[in-house]
């Protein structure tokens, strides 16, 4: 009895997956639970495991190919069993599925298919990715290099019409302000232009870029954001950090400013539960636990791994966990439970010499702190001019949950804690 191997939904938001590498080849014996292939989801690279014992046959998705969740990518048959018409061809999820894309971050683009894919006897399933579009819209999209799948159709039944194409930004136009704030990391994935004479280069969206686009568009548009900025004196925090790191010494692991900020934020949130909340359309969920989402730049995007119960953890623990999560995020090895469930987020661009910025709220969270760089400034302290290390933080608030005074009160507590780290011990 043959068992189909499906492209599984390996993350909650996954709609399609790209086969990065087959660990088993056609004809290899496999056991239940064994890794068959690595699959790039919208968030990370995950393992696709065998759900039966037997022999892997009819591998229908080549390395580098993107297929829709639910498509059959292979079958597992009993040893010696004749393979019948059980497997269907994997449904390509995008037209550019077979590794032609440039600047890709998985496998080798031109990797040869692991096995010669035998022509499958079944009729290919109906193309679920067919886009309804008028002939004029198709012609315009082709000319402009716009992927019709990414255009929302306003015609009858969601048909893409001329008007929608006139609205769609052509590739190469600067992204919307929201997107710039959200993905400011200088990760260059577009290759320097080669001398091909072409005016532009079309790079298909990766899974993570698609998710970023979808998620952020549900934030800055619908959520009534407002922003609060304050400047924090980091002199004492710097001193504390130096002292702590000296103490940690050769035990390994160092406390970063970011760890201190996460700790202070978590602590301040316990004192201002009104800011530690999710907007849930018909109700607001106020969290008793504090889970801090920490924006991490990865190649081609960003992801926010979550430091759970940050309010209960020591600075050293936060430091270790943050470092490990960031590392795994960059290697795209995060498990879904490691990047979901944050109650509040922190985004830090201090290392890029950004003085101050605004971050986009990650719904359903109601707030996010945007942290700028620490710079030495001449300020007046106790009536005397002094040079102090200063840092600007900006809080983005969802006004449906947090009002101006509520946010300001929280920010004041956070500022106090950073300016006097000992207060966190209270």
């Amino acid at each position, binding site marked *: 009895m043959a068992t189909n191997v499906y492209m599984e939904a390996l993350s909650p938001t996954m709609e399609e997956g790209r086969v990065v590498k087959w660990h088993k080849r056609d004809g290899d014996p496999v056991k239940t639970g064994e890794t068959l292939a690595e699959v790039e989801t919208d968030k990370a690279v995950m393992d696709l495991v065998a759900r039966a014992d037997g022999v892997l046959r009819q591998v229908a998705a080549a390395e580098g190919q993107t297929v829709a969740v639910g498509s059959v990518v292979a079958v597992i048959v009993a040893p010696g069993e004749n393979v019948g018409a059980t497997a269907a061809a994997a449904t390509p999820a995008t037209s550019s599925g077979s590794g032609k894309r440039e600047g890709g971050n998985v496998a080798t683009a031109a990797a040869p298919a692991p096995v010669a894919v035998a022509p499958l006897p079944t009729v290919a399933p109906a193309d679920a990715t067919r886009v309804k579009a*008028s*002939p004029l819209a198709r*012609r315009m999209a082709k*000319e402009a290099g716009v992927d019709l799948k990414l255009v929302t159709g306003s015609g009858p039944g969601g048909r893409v*019409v*001329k008007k929608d194409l006139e609205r769609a930004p052509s590739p190469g136009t600067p992204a919307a302000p929201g997107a710039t704030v959200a993905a400011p990391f200088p990760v260059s994935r577009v290759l320097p232009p080669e001398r091909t004479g072409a005016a532009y280069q079309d790079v298909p969206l990766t899974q993570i870029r698609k998710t970023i686009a979808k998620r952020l568009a549900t934030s800055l548009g619908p959520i009534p954001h407002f922003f609060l900025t304050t400047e924090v004196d980091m002199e004492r925090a710097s001193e504390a950090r130096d002292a702590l790191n000296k103490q940690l010494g050769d035990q390994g692991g160092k406390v970063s400013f970011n760890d201190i900020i996460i700790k202070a934020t978590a602590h301040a949130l316990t004192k201002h539960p009104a800011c530690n909340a999710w907007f849930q359309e018909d109700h607001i969920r106020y969290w008793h636990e504090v889970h801090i989402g920490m924006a991490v730049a990865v190649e081609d995007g960003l992801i926010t791994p979550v430091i759970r119960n940050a309010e209960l953890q020591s600075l050293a623990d936060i430091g270790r966990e943050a470092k490990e999560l960031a590392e795994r995020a960059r290697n795209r090895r995060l498990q879904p439970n490691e990047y979901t469930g944050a109650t509040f987020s922190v985004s830090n661009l201090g290392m890029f010499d950004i003085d101050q910025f605004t971050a986009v709220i990650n719904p359903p969270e109601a707030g996010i702190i945007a942290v700028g760089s620490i710079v030495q400034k001449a300020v007046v302290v106790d009536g005397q001019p002094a040079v102090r290390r200063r840092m600007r933080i900006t809080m983005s608030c969802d006004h449906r949950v947090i009002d101006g005074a509520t946010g300001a009160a929280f920010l004041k507590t956070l500022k106090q804690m950073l300016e006097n780290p000992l207060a966190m011990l209270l």
Partner: protein
Amino acid sequence: MANSFDVIILGGGPAGYVAAIRAAQLGLSTAVIEKEKLGGVCVNIGCIPTKALLHSAYIASLLREAKEFGVEAGAVKTDYGVAMQRSRKVSDQNSKGVEFLMKKNKVTVVKGAGVLQSGRKVKVGNDVYEAKKAVLIATGSRVKGLPQIGLEINKTTVISSDEALFLEKAPASMAIIGAGAVGMEFANIFHAFGTKVILIEALPRILPLEDAEASDTLAKSYKKRGIEVIAGAKVKKGTAAKDKVTLEVEASGATQKIEVATVLMAAGRAVNTENIGLAECGVQVTDRGFIKVDQNLQTTAPGYYAIGDVAGPPMLAHKGMREGVTVAELVAGKKPHPIKYDNVPSVTYCHPEVASIGLTEDQCKERKLDYVAGRFPFSANGRARGTGETEGFVKILRDKKYGEIVGAHIVGGHASEIIHELAVARENEYTVEEVELAIHAHPTMSEAVAQAALDSLGRVVDM
């Protein structure tokens, strides 16, 4: 309450009765208030009876040419009175048809003149009707004269289409002022019934809203058959006597005196917005006199909508009908497809017929569009040769880059029927290539559409 409905529609013309049927289909209790006959101007004194008369005119002209086709009909005698009586029957049938549709859809018809009141109420006589959801204003329009030059409609020597449709006899001579659709059609009708017709247009060409090539073709055709056409003409003065009218007309720098038995005023229409209580309900009108509406055709008074001629140009029955459907669906909580006002076909039913959609070539030039014109004359169309309807052409204006059909113009027999292929194409954003790819039956007049599309692509076959 007997006098309470979901929707009350003031006016039972094309916009009103279609809105009523659609509202009823969607389960809304609906009433239509009409002071005259159901069907409005269109059914009773507009589109429908004129089409009947035009067909009489067409038969007359066919018979006059019948000999050439091997049919001897003898001396052709015409009788406008008989044609008029037939046209009345056609109108009455259609009005009864609307009445039947109201019954079938359980729409209440209230006879009388309605006056709007605030609170979505309409007063008819002593009765007050209340709309729970919406009041639709569909009071339409009427012809207007030019009193400023002494040409007030007196209904005997200076008439409008309202009177022309009821004449017992075709007058010996007639000056028609205004060469839009109405003027063109009546010129055609009366000329066929033996009247000496002089067609006077203030703008530089007849059918001023159509493509210049269409105007030229019609001007030639009319002159050839003996209709006098004076375009770019100013009627300086009109003097109506008991059995004749004298006009002073200035054209091409010279003033001439024209004496005719009848003057037919076919210049412009006025909307019926007086004495229906608009101001009392807070319904405002525009500078041009139309009712001010938003994108959803809602007036400045919430709950009051305007559809049809009162809601603004183009003042065409089919545009009003679409507005009626759209507002009925909106009121029923549906999300209707937005009306594409740039895709309303315009038809003049004179012979040859003129039908168009989208931009004229002059408009393409004004807008500096990068366009290509494709043309095909009916003189090169087999079917047209067979029926002797070789006048006219199909002209398609397409966007140069993508092939979008930006405008289409047809002059010829059955142009009114042929235009819809291009209306469907434009509504669905088919380009000239899709139009050409559809196989057209041979021999048909419609083949000229495919050929014009091909011509715009530089690949015309039959020419």
